[in-house]
């Protein structure tokens, strides 16, 4: 039985390796003792030191965290409201049209979005500003929130909201006490994805950055052309660690919650 599946297992392992190998290669390079991208023959922490002591890198990191948090917040609030509205809307045609518009940032080529945003922002003076970044990144993050919240809304029994209303809860009371607590996993995973999508966004950011305001990925991108030393690998490793940690915490949270709310397995 097992021998039959061994070929399949090898194939699966091979595909998994192809998927993660390019990402993992930055880890050994970040500990390199050489000043270029060749594979190291000795280990050192100097690129991490450079990263943490360089003002430019630190400023870019802080900008990314700040913009990521603010844009995730904006995307989560707007995306959750949109998902609820679209799910409950009785006019199905209008709601499905609107939902494809909301989801379009996922399919429209990033470069097209970037040019559009650049032209619009240059007109209204948002280029190189924190709010400009937050608005642009929130727009890109909204689809993740809409998809995640819509999925958890579809698992929500509308009878619960009716029951709450019949017991005297106001519409906002129903949302705060019933709907929101039950869709929190979707909202949280949407928020995480929105944050991560902002945190590693490059194309739009390249267009709307200024010499005084750049994010970590933009800094990394220019570092490839300007310095081309393994600091970028150290930065990459840190970003990898950070985003993996966020998503792992998120999925652990939703797993423990599911265990609590789902019916007993022993029935």
């Amino acid at each position, binding site marked *: 039985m097992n021998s039959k599946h061994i070929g399949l297992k090898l194939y699966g392992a091979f595909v998994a390796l192809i998927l993660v190998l390019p990402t993992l290669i930055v880890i050994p390079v970040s500990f390199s003792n050489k000043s270029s991208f060749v594979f190291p023959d000795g280990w050192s922490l100097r690129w991490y030191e450079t990263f943490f002591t360089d003002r430019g890198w630190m400023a870019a990191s802080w900008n990314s965290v700040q913009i990521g948090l603010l844009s995730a917040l904006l995307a989560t609030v707007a995306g959750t409201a949109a998902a609820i509205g679209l799910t409950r809307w009785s006019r199905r045609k209008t709601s499905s049209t609107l939902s494809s518009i909301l989801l379009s940032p996922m399919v429209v080529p990033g470069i097209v979005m970037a040019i559009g945003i650049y032209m619009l922002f240059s007109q209204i003076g948002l280029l190189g500003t924190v709010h400009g970044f937050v608005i642009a990144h929130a727009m890109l993050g909204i689809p993740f929130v809409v998809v995640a919240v819509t999925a958890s809304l579809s698992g929500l*029994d509308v*009878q*619960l909201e*009716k*029951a*709450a*209303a*019949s*017991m*005297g*809860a*106001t519409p906002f*009371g129903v949302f705060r*006490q*019933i709907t929101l*607590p*039950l869709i929190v996993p979707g909202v949280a995973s949407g928020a995480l994805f929105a944050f991560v999508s902002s945190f590693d966004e490059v194309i739009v950011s390249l267009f709307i950055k200024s010499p005084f305001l750049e994010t970590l990925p933009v800094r990394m991108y220019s570092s490839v052309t300007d310095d081309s030393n393994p600091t970028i690998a150290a930065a990459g490793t840190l970003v990898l660690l950070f985003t993996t940690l966020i998503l792992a915490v998120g999925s652990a949270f939703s797993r423990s919650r599911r265990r*609590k*709310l*789902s*019916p*007993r397995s022993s029935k």
Partner: protein
Amino acid sequence: MSSTAERGARVVLNNVRKQYGDSVAVENLCLEVEPGEFMTLLGPSGSGKTTTLNIISGFAQADSGDLLVDGQPINGIPPRKRGMGMVFQNYALFPHMTAAQNIAFPLKQRKISKSHQRELVSAALRKVRLEGFENRYPTQLSGGQQQRVALARAIVFEPRVLLMDEPLGALDRKLRDNMQLEIRRIHREVGSTVLFVTHDQEEALALSDRIAVFNHGGLEQVGTGTELYERPRTLFVAQFLGESTQLTGQASVEAGAVVFHYQGQKIRCRSSVESSLRQAVLLIRPERLRLSTDSRSVSNDQEMIAVRIVEEVYLGAGRKLTVRLPDGSLGTVRESAGAMSDVHTGMEAVMSWDPLHAALLADDNSSQTDVEEESDLSPRPAVTALAGVAGPL
């Protein structure tokens, strides 16, 4: 929240009509529910009973007609301001709250103090006999326990009207019988006016003060269980509630008395039906029928016809026999263990009954197909088909 006021409210529906798209859900609906009464809305699915409940709860708006609670029209008032208790088919317990939090929910919305909430919650748990389960989440409760929590949550704020939408539908048979008794007891204790939706006729008979039978978006008949069972006004009601044996024939008035013509036989019946009634069905409940091998044993005040026994099923507490009627269709006879006759499968027998227990009803074929079992219907088309072939020859 005042418990000193009269506890149940009078609910009146006046000429209510509701349409969804092109299909009429209910029409010309008039129903009066007395304060404290247990009224069951009974009918097959799609008959309008759930729509009626939704109109009363406020989750659907009537297109026309009035809904009055204690004489006050409440048509436009949203559900949350109607103050009615509701029990849903799948319980609709909030999964992220414990039993106690679920039950306290309506009290919390009414801004009742925490200490008073605790008192009322434990009183409600006592009423549904679920003390000690306060801190369980719904997933940690069995179906019957969840149902009790849902019931406690609906009565905890002492609503004057309690609406239940097939609350026992998801429970197994034994638990359902048990919960029926509990619901009756709680109704007596709480005193609210109850509107209970079900498609289960036994449940309706077991629970209700009165039953409103729905069919095709309208009311067929409203009455106590006895009235509906013993004196159904339409064939639909007769067939929906319980089993029956049906004779199809013609009715006429002869010398001031109604006579039922069946297979060349004249059968007396108790009826106040007008003489215009021609095509008719004479309906007798299986437990009102007697079987015997000897027609001389049947007294003069009884009516009888000849039948052949097709099948007998022993049920412990009695016997259920299927008989072939003179017109070819099948009938059912039930005998209790203390009064079993000596007829058996394959035998010819006479089937007799007291004319007082036979109901003469207008033959309304449209409703017949909804309820009647296929085995009862199948012989008829076969007979007509044969007649059609035989004709030209």
